[in-house]
C-alpha cells in the first residue's frame, strides 16, 4: 500500500499549479514553455497513479505519448521563440503587440 490516490492527486495538483504559475508570471517566453512542460509532467504523474489505481495500462500508455507530445512542443516552441529572438532581440512578451 503506497499512499491514498487522493494524496497523489494533491501532489500533482500542486505541480500543475506551480507550472501554471510559472507560465503566467515569468516575463520570459522560454519560462512560459518551461511552465507548460511542468504542467504536462504533473498530468503524466496523475496518469501513472491512476493506471496503478485502476489497474489498467491505459494510463501508462497515455504517459508514453505525453512524452512524445512534450518533445514536439519543445521543438516547435523553441524554434519559434529563437526565431522571434533573432528578429526582435528580446524574449519579453510585451513588445509582441503589433496586432491591434
Amino acid at each position, binding site marked *: 500500500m503506497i499512499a491514498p490516490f487522493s494524496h497523489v492527486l494533491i501532489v500533482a495538483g500542486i505541480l500543475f499549479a506551480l507550472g501554471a504559475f510559472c507560465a503566467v508570471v515569468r516575463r520570459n517566453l522560454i519560462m*512560459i514553455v518551461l511552465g507548460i512542460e511542468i504542467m504536462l509532467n504533473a498530468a503524466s504523474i496523475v496518469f501513472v497513479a491512476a493506471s496503478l489505481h485502476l489497474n489498467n495500462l491505459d494510463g501508462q500508455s497515455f504517459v508514453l505519448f505525453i512524452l512524445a507530445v512534450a518533445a514536439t512542443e519543445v521543438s516547435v516552441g523553441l524554434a519559434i521563440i529563437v526565431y522571434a529572438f533573432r528578429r526582435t532581440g528580446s524574449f519579453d512578451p510585451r513588445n509582441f503587440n503589433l496586432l491591434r
Partner: protein
Amino acid sequence: MNWITYAGPEIFYLGASLWFLLLSFAPGQKVVANGAHRREYLSAMLLASIGVLVCLASVHAQGWLFVRSYSVDIFSQVFKTLLALGLFLIVCICDRMDDVDDNRHNEFYFLLFTCTLALMLLVSAEHLLSIYLCLELSSYSLYILVGLRKRRSLGLEAAIKYFLIGSFASAAMLFGMALLYSACGTGYLADMAKTLPRILDSPAVMIGLLFTLGGFFFKLAVFPFHSWAPDTYQGGSNQVAAYIATASKVAAIAIILRVVASTAHDSAYLARVLVILSVVSMTLGNLAAIAQKDLKRLLAFSTIAHSGYILIGILVLDSAGYAATIFYALALLAMKFTAFMVVVEVAPDGRNLQIEELAGLHKRSPILALALLTALFSLAGIPPTVGFTGKFLIFTAAIQKGYVALVIFAMLNVVISLYYYLLVIKAAYLLEPAQEMPPLVVSFPKKLLAGLSIAVILFAGFCPYWFIQIAQAAAQPLIWGR
C-alpha cells in the same frame, strides 16, 4: 482488412500529404514566376477534389476500428465530408497565394492536408488518448501554417500567441483528461457513456470534464480561450485564416458534440457553465467587433460570437439541439468561406484588408459585393439566408428546453452584430474610394464560385429541408450511442 474500406478517406489524405512532402524534396526547382506554384496548385486542386469524392463514397461506412478507439458512423462521415469540402474550397482560393514564401508552397499544402487528416481522425476518435493526439496534430500544423507568411513580423507574432495559448490550453485539457480517466476508470467514450450516469455529479468528474472541454473550447474560440483568434486571423495569411475559420471550427463542433453527448447527459452544472460561457462569448465577440477597423479581425470577433450561438445549441443536451448545431456547422462553413473569399479576392497581394479599402466594391466588382452582402446578412441571421435557418433551429431547440431568456439575449446580440455588419456593407455599397481604384479583375471560375456560394446560402436558407434531414441523421449516433 475491413479497416481499408472504412478508413478510405483517412488513407487518401495521408497519401496526399505524403505526396506534397515528396514534392517539397524535389531537388533544385528554380522559382519560375508563378510557374512552380501552378504545379502545386493543380495537384492540390486535383487531390482535394478526389478527397471529396472519396468521402462522399464512404458516407455510409459503419463500424468500429482500432479496437473501439475509432468509430466510423454517419456522424463522423458527414463531418469528414464537410471537412473535405472545406479543404477543397480553401484550396480553390489558394491560386494566387503571394503571401507565403515562394519556396514554401509545398510545405504549405503538406501541412494543410495533414491538418485536415488530423481533424478527420479527431471526428472519429473515441478514446481520450486518440482525441488528444489528433487535436495536438491539428493544432501544431496550424501553428506552423500561421507562421508561414511572407510578412514575417505579423505571421511570427500570431504564431507565438497561437502556440502559447494553444499549448497552455492543451496542458489544461490533458490534466482534465487525467482527472476524468482516474474518476471514470476508462478512456473510451462509449464506456464512459455507460458508467457516468451513476457518478456524474462527483466533483472530480465534473472538473475533469470542464478542463477537457476547455481544450475543445480553445479550438472553437469560446470565451476564456478566445484571445488567440483575433491575432491569428489578422496575423496569419488570408487563406490560413479562412481555413481556421471554417474547417477547424467544424471539427471543434464535432468533437464537442461527441464528448458532451456521451458524457454529460443532463448534468445541470455543465448546462449552467455552458450558458455562462455562451452569454459571455456572444457579448464579448459582438461588442469587440463594433470597434474593429481590420476586416479579418472583425470576422474573428464574429466567429467568437458565433461560437456563443453554437454553445446554445450544445447546452440543450438533446438530439434537437445536436441536429441544430450540426446544421449550424454547415451554415458556418458556407458563410465564413464566402466572406473570406471576398477578402482574398479584394486583396490579391495578401495584405490585411481595412474596412475602408472595401470602398466602391459595388462598382469594381458587383458579384463580389453581392457575395459579401449575402455572406454578411447570413452571418447576421437575416431570414432568407442559411445563417437565419441555423439560428432558428438552435433557438427552437433552446426554447423547447425552456431557455427563453437566453434566446431573447441572443437575439439582442444579433441586433448588435447587424450594426457592425451594416458598417461593412455601408463601406462596400456606399463609400466612394478616396482615389480611383483600378477595377478588380476577377477570373471567371472565381465569379462562378462566388455565384455558387450565394446560391447555396440563399437556397439552404430558404428551403433547408434536405440539409435538416442530413443534420438529423447525423445526430442519431450521438443519442444511439448512449
